[in-house]
């Protein structure tokens, strides 16, 4: 489909990624077989976030539907670094687009281990640093604090030539300051937004519904918030942005590009339609085709960069 773009030096056939943790290519291949690869809905594939140690994830229940949105408290279940490298990565290599591996560390030393090991693998095109967790050494949420972000990126940057994308959390007073800290210390790109902290009450018991009490809100309900953050961050930094948060349609995707993103990611909408990425890409292409002027007027993030 569509026009190719360059994202952090990597050529992609188009601008549509998935949000980390919202599409499991391995499980989807079990469900949909080789048709998944033949019609792969994303132009780069972002893995679910992995950690050094294996994790079971959060207690149940983990999902709550909200008006035009979803609260999840999944808790990053994953096989851990070794398990991922041994059993998931070889299978993810079959995915017909560049692979982005998302990692989270609870300290800079964990992050260093993750980045070193993951970046060493040829299957991996880029790394995404999910900074939405507390640094156990300081107690601060890494991605909410410019100093934490700078300290981490600074020490990870020398470990690899591969692009490092920092995923920003929206639960921060000034995401643009965090973005600037990431840019200043050598990040190659930024992803935003992650989920907003949220909660639901079980109407039958009056107690928090989610096993982990709180979770993260995603979906169309957060789109306006995400768009504002993309706009604000793009005004502050020159790094390419991967915009996400509630994207359901090509029009939504265009909104993010107009707000300053270079690429976009489809998250929760994948749950409503496994092939949503392809639909969004086709609809976006139609917006470009039919409304050239419309996109030209404001800030044409793809023209010029696109190769055809």
């Amino acid at each position, binding site marked *: 489909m569509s026009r190719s773009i360059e994202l952090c030096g990597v050529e992609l056939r188009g601008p549509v990624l998935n949000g980390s943790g919202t599409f499991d290519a391995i499980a989807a291949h079990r*469900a949909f077989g080789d048709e998944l690869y033949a*019609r792969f809905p994303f132009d780069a594939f972002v893995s679910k976030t992995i950690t050094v140690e294996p994790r079971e994830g959060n207690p149940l229940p983990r999902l709550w539907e909200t008006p035009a949105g979803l609260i999840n408290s999944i808790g990053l279940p994953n096989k851990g670094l070794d398990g991922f490298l041994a059993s998931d990565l070889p299978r993810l290599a079959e995915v017909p687009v560049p692979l982005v591996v998302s990692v989270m560390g609870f300290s800079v030393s964990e992050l260093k281990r993750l980045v070193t090991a993951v970046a060493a693998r040829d299957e991996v095109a880029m790394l995404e640093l999910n900074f939405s967790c507390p640094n156990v050494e300081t107690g601060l949420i890494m991605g909410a604090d410019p100093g934490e972000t700078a300290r981490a990126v600074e020490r990870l940057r020398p470990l690899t030539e591969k692009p490092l994308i920092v995923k920003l959390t929206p639960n921060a007073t000034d995401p643009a300051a965090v973005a600037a800290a990431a840019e200043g210390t050598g990040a190659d790109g930024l992803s935003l937004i992650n989920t907003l902290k949220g909660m639901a009450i079980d109407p039958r018991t009056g107690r928090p519904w989610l096993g982990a009490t709180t979770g993260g809100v995603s979906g169309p309900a957060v789109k306006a918030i995400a768009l504002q953050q993309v706009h604000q961050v793009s005004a502050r930094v020159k790094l390419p942005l991967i915009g996400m948060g509630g994207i359901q349609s090509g029009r939504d995707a265009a909104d993010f590009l107009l707000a300053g993103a270079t690429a976009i990611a489809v998250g929760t909408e994948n749950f*409503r*339609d496994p092939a949503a990425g392809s639909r969004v890409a086709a609809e976006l292409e139609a917006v470009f085709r039919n409304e050239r002027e419309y996109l030209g007027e404001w800030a044409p993030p793809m023209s010029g960069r696109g190769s055809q």
Partner: protein
Amino acid sequence: MTAPFGRRLTTVSQGRDVGAYRVITAVDREGPDPEPGQFYMLAAAERWGGGESERPWLPRAFSYARARPAHGGGVELDFLLEAVGPGTERLAELERGDGLWLTGPLGVGFSPADRPLLVGGGIGAAPLLCLQDQHPDAPVLLGFRSAAYAEAAALFEGPVGLCTDDGSAGRQAFVTELLRERLDSGEGQTVYACGPPAMLEAVRALCAEREVPAQLALESGMACGFGACFGCVVPTRSGYVRLCVDGPVLDAAELVTAEVPGAGH
């Protein structure tokens, strides 16, 4: 059997009430034949969203109840629905000609076994219908809240063991009592069961005591149905598994309990 990739728009060919339940039928032109215990993610093409508190928004999971070759190709699917919230209420409104989004068949269904015994509680009867089509001689035990729900028993072929909580149809008993009697009389080599968490847990315990193998079709809240969200996990002896890709049918031996926090209604 893998599913076609992506959701597809089908048309409801019939919607009819069966006692307190509703059966909707849709023709899936592109889809392969599903296997008993597999499920589909469904959403109405219109008015999905914007109900009471703006829900439903995500698709909902449903076992197919019966499948048959469709006139003109593809497969005709029956779904047996109980309206318990905004999603099932909306689906229960669908009539002939209405659009239905469908993804599937998904998940792992029942695995073959000899001399099965089919045990259903309430809406859990749904996946037993196609199981009965495969195992026409298997005994069927069904429990319902009351007579209005028990009308679903008529969807099965031949006589079934029937009970209700209030005795308004069949025996006044829980279906696990019927099951206990059958097991104690040596009937059935494998139990196939589907129903609410407490019933499945009772089935699990009964079978475990007697060392009868059981396959349980569980429920849990699902957002995606194809392994993407990790929201549907249930605890097993080997940790959490995603019910949508590793189930919904699980070997009872894998479970410490069939009661999943947040499942059921």
